[in-house]
């Protein structure tokens, strides 16, 4: 036992009399410390209290250890030292005197290798009276006693590092003053550490040394101490409780490598060497470390290595093996340019930045000699990242690159080459936008002038010429030119307004005069360009494009030429900005007003298109924030509604406002505006929801009208949209709602049940009724709607089987929808009543009701949250879980009855099973698969039975089923199907659905169905593991559940490759390819 201090050398026999209490406390402590930490702690606290209350002294406590601390057994020694540590820990923070701390520190330092001493020192060093000199002493003790540290256990090493880390944070100056001694000591102590938890500490301690110590004598030693760990290949074990990732370690290591410029001579060559590695991950780590170094080292150091780095990295970019390596390399190069731009205010060829960029631009210029070849792309990318680094870098690059490009462009022998050159210029323009901003960019003006200004006229000429002078078929060439011109037009402080105006005129000409070529890419880009310019220079669009476009709009549609549609569409795309929209509204509204006054207005398609255009633009804008919204409200909601009323009463000049599609779009426009105006205006609307702002003597509102004609009834379309837009608070203002809504609901319901209305009007009645029941009916009054439901669904309760007309069934379902989505108390009753309709012996009742289930939960434009409908979050789940077991058991009954053929009386009609499957498909198509999954074992057999339906009527059901299956397979993989044990039966049915109709078989598989079935097969093969972002650990090798059917699938699909429809063949190629590629054969025996 080495290094024992005088006081403690006393042999046990010579110890002075010791109080029995303390003696037994130590012994008890030593007995329990291993298995009962709490008890041990309590014992130590008791002793601490005795010390505090002067029942015993600290000296006595120390002396009591004497018997054990020289024992041969290190465990006994450790326990004894731990006892002292525990007592000290339990003492109040300010109890120990400076001298006591000093004695204890010396004691622990002597005993530093014993268990508990490190913890004792950690406690002491945190005390206020702990001195710098003691910190020095502790550090020395650590350095001289732990040469063998790496041979000790991980937790012991961790304690040592932890103590060092604490000393670093509390007594850093003391350690730093030790200079090279602490530097070398710390490095020696930590060298060879391998545990990730410890390394996290090691790296952070070393980084402090790197940054704060004078390391000039030992830079390489320090660098090597961390660089030895590069690259980090650590992979955390599964369920790692410490949660340290490779990325955490990489991050700390990278911080160390980048800690000081003095590492540069070692770090940069070493990291560049690592780029020779064959592992992309190693290269990536090296590049990331380089990026960190460049951001942290001082600019002079960066400059010294800049060209060396370029020379290595250029290969990574020009011959990129992996896209991400090329990107990281570009980031390195860009980082260098940014550092070298710091503090530079003027471009000059003497700058370190210019020297760095010179070989780069030279290389790029060479590659760009043949700009259509493969390596021109990386050259473009290099220019792109470097020129975006700073205004100065941009300037230097433009000065050396643009003129040569002009020369090659003039001499270019083909359009392919010219286009590649234009693309290169566009890349530079993109950088210009990043460096100098756009017209709409706020702040950040650069001090230096945009170097592109020097070439402004040449750009304007070249791009204008390429856009308008090239042959019309050269679409991609012209699109490139357009993009370049557009960039320059949005670039801040570049073009004058008249120069941007020139581009606008070109675009107008393309859109108004040219026939579209190919897919119409040029036209699409032109519209997008005008829309982009409208954000920056709205005035120019209003002044140039508007007059030109509006002038081409006809007075009316004679049915010969519908080119006004594309004009309107373009206007719609470019009119989102406020000023432009105001102009658009004024121009189009006056066109519409003129049309409404004409005796012979031509096709309604034109006024309808005008309304659609206005609607489209308003949907893109925030109308409730538009200061002109009241004006639009007065013109459209009040003005046009009044015209609708007049038209319905036969007092209009023409029939435009009697057309249901026109009313539909006018209605949506009104709906949007009603939602955007104040509550006062909404109350006016509520009062006029049926009268449509018309005087009573001129128009009879629909509800309670004794006699109505179709024109008059049709106004319910407008009324419905107005009602939908109203806030719930306006409810009491709606006519006929006092004392309650029963009369109004009954009247609307009566009208929607009547079979005489035209479809659009009928739909409006259905929605109107649903809106009233869902949104405006108070909770207390819900029974009104529920009674109405009962009266509709079983008009004669004495009849066992109901026969209902389709119009009645629609009314019933829309009313149910309104009640179910707000989770009315009778939801279950409603659903069971609806399901009962499916079992009706009347086939029409059954099949119509079956199809109704698809609207129960579907999203509706009118009954929507936007319009303030009450839609409870849990309604979908509630409906699904109520309906599924009922449908499932009903189908089981039908199946059993069907198999019992001896007794024809139990035979159910043939339409009942398909009806239930249709209802099921309808529900499933409107809910998310997350809700479906828990029910899958019940559901899957039903879905498979749906696929067995072969008739033409079942196409919709089967399509919905295949859609559901596709989503289930895509999100959850084959596994879930396999768990239900249905893989083979599913595959068999899918294959059956992929075959085109066989004449005479009666089976109908439309192309859409065949494609959907093939898509499911494709997904089966590609989703064999549950998720695609699978964890690194591969699942244990097992045979694919698809293997037994692989040959059957490949054989069947070979025939589908000859399907008459191309779309189907394409899907078959993909599905077959996936099965060939992804469904692994059984591993061969000899493997």
């Amino acid at each position: 036992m080495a290094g024992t201090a005088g006081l403690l050398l006393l042999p046990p026999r010579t110890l002075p009399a010791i109080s029995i209490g303390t003696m037994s406390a130590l012994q008890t402590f030593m007995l329990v410390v291993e298995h009962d930490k709490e008890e041990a702690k309590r014992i130590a606290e008791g002793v601490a209290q005795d010390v505090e209350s002067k029942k015993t002294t600290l000296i006595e406590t120390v002396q009591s250890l004497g018997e054990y601390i020289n024992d041969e057994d290190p465990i006994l020694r450790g326990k004894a030292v731990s006892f002292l540590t525990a007592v000290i820990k339990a003492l109040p923070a300010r109890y120990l005197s400076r001298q006591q701390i000093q004695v204890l520190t010396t004691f622990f330092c002597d005993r530093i290798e014993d268990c508990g001493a490190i913890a004792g020192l950690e406690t002491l060093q945190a005390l206020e009276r702990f001195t710098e000199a003691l910190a020095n002493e502790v550090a020395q003790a650590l350095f001289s006693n732990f040469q063998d540290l790496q041979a000790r256990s991980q937790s012991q090493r961790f304690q040592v590092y932890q103590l060092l880390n604490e000393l670093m944070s509390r007594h850093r100056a003391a350690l730093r003053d030790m200079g090279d001694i602490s530097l070398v000591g710390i490095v020696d102590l930590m060298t060879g550490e391998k545990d990730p938890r410890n390394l996290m500490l090691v790296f952070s301690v070393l980084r402090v040394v790197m940054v704060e110590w004078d390391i000039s004598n030992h830079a390489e030693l320090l660098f090597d101490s961390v660089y030895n760990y590069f690259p980090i290949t650590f992979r955390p074990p599964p369920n790692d409780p410490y949660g340290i990732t490779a990325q955490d370690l990489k991050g700390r290591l990278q911080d160390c490598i980048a800690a000081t410029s003095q590492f540069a001579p070692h770090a940069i060559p070493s990291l560049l060497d690592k780029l020779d590695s064959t592992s992309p991950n190693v290269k990536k780590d090296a590049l990331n470390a380089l990026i960190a170094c460049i951001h942290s080292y001082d600019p002079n150091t960066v400059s010294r290595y800049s060209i060396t780095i370029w020379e290595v990295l250029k290969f990574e970019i020009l011959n990129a093996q992996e896209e991400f390596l090329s990107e990281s390399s570009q980031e390195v190069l860009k980082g260098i340019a940014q550092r070298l731009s710091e503090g530079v205010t003027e471009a000059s060829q003497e700058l370190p930045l210019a020297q760095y960029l010179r070989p780069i631009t030279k290389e790029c210029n060479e590659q760009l000699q043949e700009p259509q070849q493969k390596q021109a792309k990386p050259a473009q990318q290099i220019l792109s990242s470097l020129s975006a680094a700073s205004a100065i870098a941009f300037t230097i690059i433009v000065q050396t690159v643009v003129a040569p490009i002009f020369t090659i462009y003039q001499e270019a022998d083909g359009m392919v080459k010219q286009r590649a050159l234009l693309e290169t210029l566009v890349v530079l323009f993109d950088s210009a936008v990043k460096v100098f901003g756009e017209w709409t960019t706020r702040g950040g003006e650069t001090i230096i002038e945009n170097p592109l200004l020097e070439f402004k006229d040449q750009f304007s000429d070249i791009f204008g010429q390429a856009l308008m002078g090239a042959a019309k078929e050269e679409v991609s060439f012209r699109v490139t030119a357009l993009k370049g011109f557009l960039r320059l037009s949005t670039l801040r402080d570049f073009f004058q307004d008249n120069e941007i105006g020139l581009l606008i005129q070109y675009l107008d000409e393309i859109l108004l005069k040219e026939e579209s070529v190919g897919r119409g890419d040029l036209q699409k880009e032109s519209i997008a360009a005008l829309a982009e310019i409208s954000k920056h220079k709205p005035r120019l669009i209003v002044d140039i494009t508007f007059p030109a476009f509006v002038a081409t709009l006809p007075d009316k549609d004679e049915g010969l030429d519908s080119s006004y549609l594309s004009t309107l569409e373009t206007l719609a795309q470019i009119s989102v900005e406020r000023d432009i929209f105001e102009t658009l509204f004024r121009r189009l509204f006056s066109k519409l007003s003129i049309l409404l006054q004409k005796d012979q207005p031509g096709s309604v398609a034109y006024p309808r298109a005008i309304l659609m255009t206005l609607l489209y633009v308003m949907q893109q804008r925030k109308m409730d924030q538009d200061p002109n919204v009241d004006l639009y409200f007065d013109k459209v909601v009040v003005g046009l509604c009044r015209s609708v009323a007049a038209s319905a009463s036969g007092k209009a000049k023409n029939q435009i406002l009697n057309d249901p599609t026109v009313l539909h779009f006018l209605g949506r426009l009104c709906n949007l505006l009603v939602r955007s105006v104040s509550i006062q205006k909404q109350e006016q609307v509520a009062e006029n929801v049926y009268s449509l702002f018309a005087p009573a003597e001129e128009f009879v509102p629909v509800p309670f009208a004794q006699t109505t004609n179709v024109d008059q009834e049709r106004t319910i379309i407008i009324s419905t949209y107005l009602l939908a837009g109203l806030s719930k608070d306006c409810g009491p203002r709606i006519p006929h709602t006092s004392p309650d809504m029963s009369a109004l609901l009954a009247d609307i319901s009566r009208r929607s049940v009547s079979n005489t209305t035209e479809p659009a009007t009928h739909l409006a009645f259905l929605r109107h009724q649903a809106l009233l029941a869902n949104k405006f009916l108070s909770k207390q009054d819900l029974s009104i709607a529920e009674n109405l439901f009962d009266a509709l669904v079983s008009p004669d309760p004495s009849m066992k089987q109901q026969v209902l007309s389709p119009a009645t069934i629609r009314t019933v379902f829309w009313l149910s929808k309104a009640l179910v989505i707000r989770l009315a108390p009778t939801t279950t009753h409603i659903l069971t009543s609806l399901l009962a309709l499916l079992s009706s012996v009347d086939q029409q009742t059954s099949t119509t009701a079956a199809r109704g289930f698809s609207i129960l939960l579907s999203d509706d434009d009118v009954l929507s949250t936007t319009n303030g409908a009450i839609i409870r979050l849990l309604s979908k789940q509630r409906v699904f879980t109520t309906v599924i077991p009922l449908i499932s058991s009903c189908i089981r009954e039908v199946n059993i009855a069907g198999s019992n053929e001896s007794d024809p009386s139990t035979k159910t009609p043939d339409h009942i099973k398909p009806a239930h499957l249709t209802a099921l498909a309808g529900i499933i198509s409107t809910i998310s698969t997350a809700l479906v999954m828990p029910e899958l074992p019940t559901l899957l057999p039903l879905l498979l039975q749906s696929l067995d339906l072969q008739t033409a009527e079942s196409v919709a059901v089967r399509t919905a089923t295949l859609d559901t299956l596709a989503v289930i397979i895509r999100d959850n993989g084959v596994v879930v199907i396999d768990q239900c044990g249905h893989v083979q039966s599913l595959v068999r049915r899918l294959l059956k659905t992929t075959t085109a109709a066989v004449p005479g078989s009666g089976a109908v598989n439309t192309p859409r169905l065949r494609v959907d079935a093939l898509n499911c097969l494709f997904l089966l093969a590609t989703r064999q593991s549950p998720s695609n972002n699978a964890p690194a650990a591969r699942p244990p090798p097992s045979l694919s559940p698809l293997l037994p059917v692989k040959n059957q699938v490949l054989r069947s699909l070979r025939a589908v490759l000859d399907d008459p429809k191309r779309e189907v063949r394409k899907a078959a190629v993909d599905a077959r390819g996936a099965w060939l590629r992804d469904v692994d054969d059984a591993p061969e025996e000899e493997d």
Partner: protein
Amino acid sequence: MEMQNSNPTILNAADLPTRLRPTARKPDHVGIFALPSLSPDFLPEASSDSEDENLLEEPIDEQEIYDIRVVLILDLISDHADLIATISDPEHPISLGELAVVSLPDISIKPTLPNVPDSPLKTVTVLITPTITHCSLATVIGLGVRVRLEQSLPPRFRVDVRIKEGTHSTGDEVNKQLADKERVAAALENGALMGVVAKMIETCR
């Protein structure tokens, strides 16, 4: 592997031949002018593809071979990823279409038995243009095209893949290998070779 041609010319993906969608549809029913269904019926009566359209046959043609079955594409740039133009070149992560190794005019479909007009048998001929005349990978590319076609064409098609005349220094030799059923079969047994081919075809989607 040392690159044989590190800087080939690349065609712009937008300029590759594509099948244009029929423009016959009424222009007033698309884009922002699409008309909604105003029927109160629960399900649309007729599915979007009408009966007539469903019966219309679309025979396999050259564009389809180019698109879906032969062009090997790495990038899923477009929605017209068709058959072969999407196969990748083993040296470059670029599609054979973009490298013009496979081009539309060099694909032909002819009746295998011109004297039997009713025979459904057809022969697809694909001519390959290597990016350089001494490209040693021409055989592998040819094999890739061949495998892709055999996997994705119905059995009544015969596949004939050849190097375009005058585009390769040992074109005849390569053609002999590609036409030799035994040697093709042997090549398909070769794990390493099939790995390269599988990698090429992987991008065909």
